[in-house]
C-alpha cells in the first residue's frame, strides 16, 4: 500500500497493446492450424514503481497468460512490454537472464513449484548463485537466515524440506525464493488461492509488509475480487482477454462503471447476512464464451444486461476515462455514461450455452473413465 507514490512514481512496467494468441492445431502431426485461442487480445497497462496492481477476472480470461507474457515466459503475438523503460522483446540469452533477476514470480501452488528433494537452503541459494549474487558461504547463510526470518518461517527452516511445511509456510518459502535475488517486480499469480481461509490473511499481510519495507512493486493476479481489491492500489478487471475497467481500489467498489464489473461485484458473497439480504444481484445469463471464438464488438455483449442495438456487437470499445471520474479510472464500454446516469436500464438476457467441447468431435466418447479425461485435464 503506497498511496503517496501512486500518481507520481515513474512507471516500472508498461504493457502496450499486448496480444497472445495460441494456435489450435489439428491433423496427424498437429500441423494444421484450425484457429486461435485469443488468450490476451489488446491489453495496455502501466504499473508504477512501488505500487500494487491487481488483475482480476474469471477462469480463462487470460490473467496467467498476461503474467507469463510480461515475464517473457510466453512469447507475445504482438504488442510491447517495457520494463524500466526498456523494451524486453529483443532481450535474449545472458541479457534476458540478467533482466529476469529483477522480476520474479510467485505461483499459486507452492508445492508444485518447489523441488521436494531440495532443502530450503538449497532452494534459496540457487537463485543467489544463478544470478552471481553469492558472497561466499558465510555471508550467504547469514542472508538466507535473515530472509527466512523476514518471511516468518521458524528458525531452523533452512535445513528442512518443502514437505515438512504447511501450505502457508510453503507459500512463504516461495516468496522468500522470489525475494532472495532482490527483484524490483514480483508477479504473484493466485498467491493465496490454494491456502486455507485462516492462513490467507497471514500471507497477504506478509506481502504488504515486505512491500513497505523493501519498496517492491507487485502485480497480483487472482480470481478473488475481495483479495485483489484488498492488496492492490489499482485494479484491472479482465474479461475474455481484455481489460474492461481499471480503477483505484477504493473507486472500484464505490463506483463500478462497466456492466461486467457491476455483475462481478454483485456476485461476490459478503460474509454479512444483513448486507446479503439488502443487496441486489445482477445475475448474468449463460456462460463465458470461448476465447477461441470471442464475440464481435464488445466481448461482453452476449451477456450484458445493458447491451444496446447500436455499436455493442460491431465496435470494440476502447478503455477511456469518463467525465468526472477519478484519475486512473478507465472503462471500456460505449454506453458507460448513459448507464451511470440511469438513462439506459438493464434488460433480460437469454442464456447462451457454450459448448465446452465445441472444438472436439461430437458424439459419444468411446473409451473414457471420466469427463476430465475427455477434456484432457
Amino acid at each position, binding site marked *: 500500500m503506497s498511496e503517496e507514490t501512486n500518481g507520481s512514481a515513474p512507471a516500472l512496467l508498461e504493457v502496450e497493446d499486448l496480444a497472445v494468441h495460441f494456435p489450435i492445431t489439428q491433423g496427424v502431426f498437429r500441423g494444421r492450424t484450425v484457429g486461435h485461442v485469443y488468450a490476451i487480445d489488446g491489453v495496455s497497462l502501466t504499473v508504477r514503481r512501488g505500487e500494487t496492481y491487481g488483475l482480476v477476472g*474469471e477462469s480463462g480470461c487470460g490473467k496467467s497468460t498476461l503474467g507469463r507474457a510480461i515475464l517473457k515466459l510466453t512469447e507475445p503475438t504482438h504488442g510491447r512490454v517495457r520494463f524500466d523503460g526498456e523494451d524486453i522483446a529483443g532481450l535474449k540469452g545472458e541479457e534476458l537472464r540478467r533482466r529476469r533477476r529483477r522480476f520474479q514470480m510467485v505461483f499459486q501452488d507452492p508445492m508444485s513449484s518447489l523441488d521436494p528433494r531440495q532443502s530450503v537452503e538449497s532452494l534459496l541459494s540457487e537463485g543467489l548463485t544463478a544470478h552471481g549474487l553469492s558472497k561466499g558461504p558465510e555471508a550467504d547463510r547469514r542472508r538466507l537466515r535473515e530472509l527466512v526470518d523476514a518471511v516468518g518461517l521458524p528458525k531452523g527452516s533452512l535445513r528442512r524440506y518443502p514437505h515438512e511445511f504447511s501450505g502457508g509456510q510453503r507459500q512463504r518459502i516461495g516468496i522468500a525464493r522470489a525475494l532472495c535475488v532482490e527483484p524490483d517486480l514480483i508477479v504473484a499469480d493466485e498467491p493465496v488461492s490454494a491456502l486455507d481461509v485462516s492462513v490467507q490473511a497471514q500471507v497477504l499481510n506478509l506481502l504488504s509488509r515486505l512491500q513497505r519495507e523493501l519498496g517492491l512493486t507487485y502485480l497480483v493476479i487472482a480470481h478473488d475480487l475481495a483479495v485483489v481489491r484488498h492488496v492492490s492500489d489499482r485494479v484491472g478487471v479482465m474479461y475474455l482477454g481484455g481489460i474492461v475497467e481499471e480503477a483505484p481500489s477504493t473507486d472500484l*467498489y464505490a463506483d463500478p462503471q462497466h456492466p461486467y464489473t457491476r455483475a462481478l461485484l454483485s456476485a461476490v458473497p459478503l460474509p454479512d*447476512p444483513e448486507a446479503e439480504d439488502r443487496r441486489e444481484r445482477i445475475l*448474468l445469463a449463460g456462460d463465458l464464451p470461448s476465447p477461441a471464438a470471442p464475440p464481435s464488438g464488445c466481448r461482453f455483449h452476449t451477456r450484458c444486461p445493458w447491451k444496446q442495438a447500436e455499436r455493442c456487437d460491431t465496435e470494440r470499445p476502447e478503455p477511456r476515462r469518463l467525465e468526472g471520474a477519478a484519475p486512473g479510472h478507465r472503462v471500456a464500454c460505449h454506453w458507460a455514461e448513459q448507464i451511470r446516469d440511469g438513462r439506459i436500464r438493464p434488460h433480460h438476457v437469454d442464456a447462451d450455452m457454450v459448448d465446452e467441447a465445441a472444438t472436439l468431435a461430437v458424439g459419444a466418447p468411446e473409451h473414457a473413465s471420466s469427463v476430465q479425461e475427455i477434456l484432457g485435464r
Partner: protein
Amino acid sequence: MTALLEVEDLRVAFTRRGEPDTVAVDGVSFDVKPGEIVGLVGESGCGKSVTSLAVMRLLPERGNRVTGSIRMDGEDLLALSDSAMRERRGRDLSMIFQDPLSSLNPVIPVGLQVTEVLTRHRGMKKHAARREAAELLDRVGIPDPTRRLDSYPHQMSGGMRQRALIAIALACTPRLLIADEPTTALDVTIQAQILDLLEQLVAETGTALVMITHDLGVVAGLCDRVNVLYAGRIVERADRHELFRAPRHPYTHGLLGSIPRLDGPPGEELAAIRGSVNDNLPWAAPEGGACAFTPRCPRALDVCGEVTPLAERAGTRLLRCHNPVPVAEGAA
C-alpha cells in the same frame, strides 16, 4: 417443527492396520428441519465431506468405523440394510458434489442419466420420463433443454454440468439435499447463478438443504442456521444473523476478522489467525484432553490445553469453548 434429519454423536474413524486411527469426524451432532437450509462450514480437512458421505452412507465399505446415529423420520439410517439404504437414497436424500465432472457418467448422454433416475425410482415410463427430464433441465436453467438431453457431459460448460447434476439430484424429489461445495469449482458469476437456483428450489419444493462450504460469504447469504466445524467437531452453531453479528467462538471470530471484505476499506492489516491446522492438539488424549485450537487461539487459558471443552448451549447458540468472546466484543 420436528427435525427431518437428526445426526447425533457421529464419529468416523479411518482405520489402517498397524497405524493409529484417524478420527475425521469426532462426535458431530446437528439437525435439519424440513425446508431449512443448514450450513456446515470449516476449512480444508475439518470433516465436512466425511460427515456428508457418512449421512449418505457413501463412505468406502472398508477401512472406517462409523458410530453414533443418523435418524431420518426417526429411523436410524446406519441400521438400514444396504438395499434399504439404496432405496432411501433414491427416494429421500440426494447429494450434489463439488466436481460435476467426476460424478457424471462421461459416456452416457445427460438426458439418459436423468431419465434413469426417473424410471428406476419413480417408476416412470420411458416417454414420460424423457418429458419430465426435459422439464427438469429447464427448471435448473439449461437453455434448449430438449436438445440438451442428448448432450454428453463433456459438451457442457462447468456451470451447465453442475446444473445437470442438480437436475439429477432433483429427479427423485428428495426431501433432503446435501450439497458439498457445489460452487467451489465455479466462477463467481456462475456461483451466483447456482446459489440463486438452489435457493429458489428450496423455496418451491420445500426440500431441506445441507450446504457444505468453506466460504463464509456463501453461508451468510443462504443458510438459516450455521454449524462451524473445526478439526472434526462443531465448535459453534447459531442462526446466521446471530453468528455473523456476534461470533463468539474464537475460531469463528478470527475467521471473520481474517477475510478481506469487498465492502471494507482496502489495505488495512488483516487480523490473521496464527499458525495452521498442523499445530492442532488432539481433542481427546489418554492423559486428559484439550481444545484443538489452543496453539492458535488468542484467548487460550491454561485450562484449554488440559481439558476438552464441551459443547454447551447458550440460548439458541451452541458453543464449545472455555473462554468465548464476550457478547459485546463479538458484536464489534
